[in-house]
């Protein structure tokens, strides 16, 4: 396995932080304490954490409307994230972005994105920057199965393949785009099949298993870093909540949902495998659970107490400089 106990504990902490963050948000949004459109990442934690564990801070990731997990995994401050969702001036984006635009460029997090597929060319551009300037960085684009039907996916992968850009395209195939099952709108069995339109390497990982994602992402990232071009990495997964908070999921098959949520929880799978390795104390996981819970309670308290942006800020940050 090759991980030390503290490493495994840190990985677990990240996954747990994402899960607890999303559970907390589910409560807060349901209670009307937070507004806006809210898409939760719960169930997909192994992907964000597995991929980002292979990245340096200066490597860039770009995300989607379902972006909290990628932020946490890339090291964005959880309290600043929570403050953002409360629309506070202490938020990552000073309250101007919200869930669908949460970002922290200093951590290499180029933003969630409200446009399905819209983040893919941006990340491709980050890879272009690295290539033109001869930097060693790689860029990773996260997106859903539904996004692979977007023209922006097709055009970006074409460019990356032509130029052999240092980028990894991570498709999180959670079986649905909103309420529509993937097989109804994606005419191939695996998203990975689509890579052949770009002559691109494709790999499929078990998105519920941190270790599988970590290994396969690691290979793809190493190749990109060595100048051997892009890879499409498909991770099979499931989202535990509905498309957005409030979605009662009448369109999904109950047994199937049960099976994923009860038997394929990425946190459970991780804990089992990590425990088998015998380098983490058994109560360590529960201790982390407690610490994360405390952190999130603090985050909510601090966010609620934090100042709202002043109204004058509606007009700032549009341009660096604008003189008419």
């Amino acid at each position: 396995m090759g991980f030390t106990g503290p490493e495994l504990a840190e990985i677990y902490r990240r996954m747990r932080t994402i899960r607890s963050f999303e559970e907390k948000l589910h409560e807060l949004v349901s209670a009307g304490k937070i507004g806006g459109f809210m898409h939760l990442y719960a169930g997909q934690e192994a992907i964000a954490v597995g991929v980002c564990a292979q990245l340096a801070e200066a490597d860039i990731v770009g995300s989607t409307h379902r972006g909290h997990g990628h932020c946490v995994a890339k090291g964005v401050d959880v309290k600043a994230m929570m403050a953002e969702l409360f629309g506070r001036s202490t938020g990552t984006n000073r309250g101007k972005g919200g869930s669908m635009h949460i970002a922290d460029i200093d951590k290499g997090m180029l933003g969630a994105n409200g446009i399905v597929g819209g983040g893919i060319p941006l990340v491709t551009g980050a890879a272009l920057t690295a290539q033109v300037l001869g930097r060693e960085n790689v860029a990773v684009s996260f997106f859903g199965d539904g996004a692979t039907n977007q023209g922006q996916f097709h055009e970006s992968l074409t460019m990356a393949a032509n130029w052999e850009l240092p980028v990894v395209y991570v498709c999180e195939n959670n079986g649905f785009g909103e309420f529509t099952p993937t097989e109804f709108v994606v005419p191939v069995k695996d998203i990975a099949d689509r890579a052949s339109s770009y002559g691109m390497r494709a790999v499929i990982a078990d998105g519920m298993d941190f270790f599988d994602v970590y290994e396969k992402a690691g290979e793809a990232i190493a190749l990109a870093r060595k100048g051997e071009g892009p890879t499409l990495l498909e991770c099979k997964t499931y989202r535990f909540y509905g498309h957005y908070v409030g979605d009662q999921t009448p369109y999904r098959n109950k047994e199937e949902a049960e099976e994923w949520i009860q038997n394929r929880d990425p946190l459970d799978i991780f804990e089992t495998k990590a425990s088998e390795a015998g380098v983490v104390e058994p109560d360590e996981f529960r201790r982390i659970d407690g610490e994360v819970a405390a952190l999130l309670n603090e985050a909510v308290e601090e966010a609620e107490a934090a100042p709202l942006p002043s109204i004058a800020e509606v007009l700032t940050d549009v341009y660096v400089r604008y003189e008419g």
Partner: protein
Amino acid sequence: MSRILSTGGAINEAIAIAMRTDPTVILMGEDVAGGGDRSKDGTEEMGGVLGTTRGLVGEFGMNRVRDTPIAEMGLIGTAVGAAATGLRPIAELMFMDFLGTSLDPLLNQASKLRYMFGGKVKVPLTVRTVSGAGMQAAAQHSQSLYWITTGIPGLKTVIPSNPVDAKGLLLAAIRDDDPVIFCEPKGILNQSSEVPEGDYEIPLGKANIVREGSDVSLVAFGATVRIAMKAAKALEGAGTSAEVVDLRSLSPLDDEAILTSLEKTGRMVIIDESTPRCSIARDIAAVCVDKGFDFLQAPVKCVTAPHTPVPFSAVLEQAFLPSAQDVLDAVGQMG
């Protein structure tokens, strides 16, 4: 007969009536069914991300109510081709912000085919789309981009301000032989009122005087009509009689109604939820200072959002949106 319906409910009813009365009408878009009929596997439909089209796949089946991939160019472009060859499609563009990923079939195809072909084709397409802010949906899901579709020759653009108009304008739009962009402003989707049953149309291109007045004209449309009415009431308290004009259509524009009102009042405020540059508000101000110059007793005022993206935080979003107070301030500044 009439019942209480929300704007969403009125839209649903208009679609159903259009589909019942014309077998060439189809509905297509992302999740317009959203589950249901498709696999008969016991799952239920969502009827669109806001539930507006619920029930339609049950009545009309999957041949005529089609969930599409998340592919707006393909979805709108396919609808344009279908419209040019015998169907009368209603295509849903989930949010108007997604003009970003669907502009070409509207800008370069739907709007131009008839002209480019020398009049030898028609494109009876309706694109329904949700516009506007107010749900904290932030910069990419809150834009009022009707100024873009209005500026494109060959397209028509329609925007209702209440459930009754929504039903009648949508029926007229679907049956119109030209491509029509039908905006559903977030600010009115959950508004409810009595809506007549049955089949009725409200003609495109005709404004509606929703309040008569003699001192100042407030021109509004979509979600800003309510703001105008609120401001009109406040002005009345201060002894100023405001006329409120609900445009209903942005293209064609009812210049005549606007100028008639201006002639009557000599003062004009246009209230527009969009950002200011190249907006409908400024477009109308230009009409006033050209064709209505002799009527003008004061500067024409545009009450719009500022030249910024839409912010997320509720306090900022409220400050971004035009308000009745902004209208009162504008009237105050007219001198």
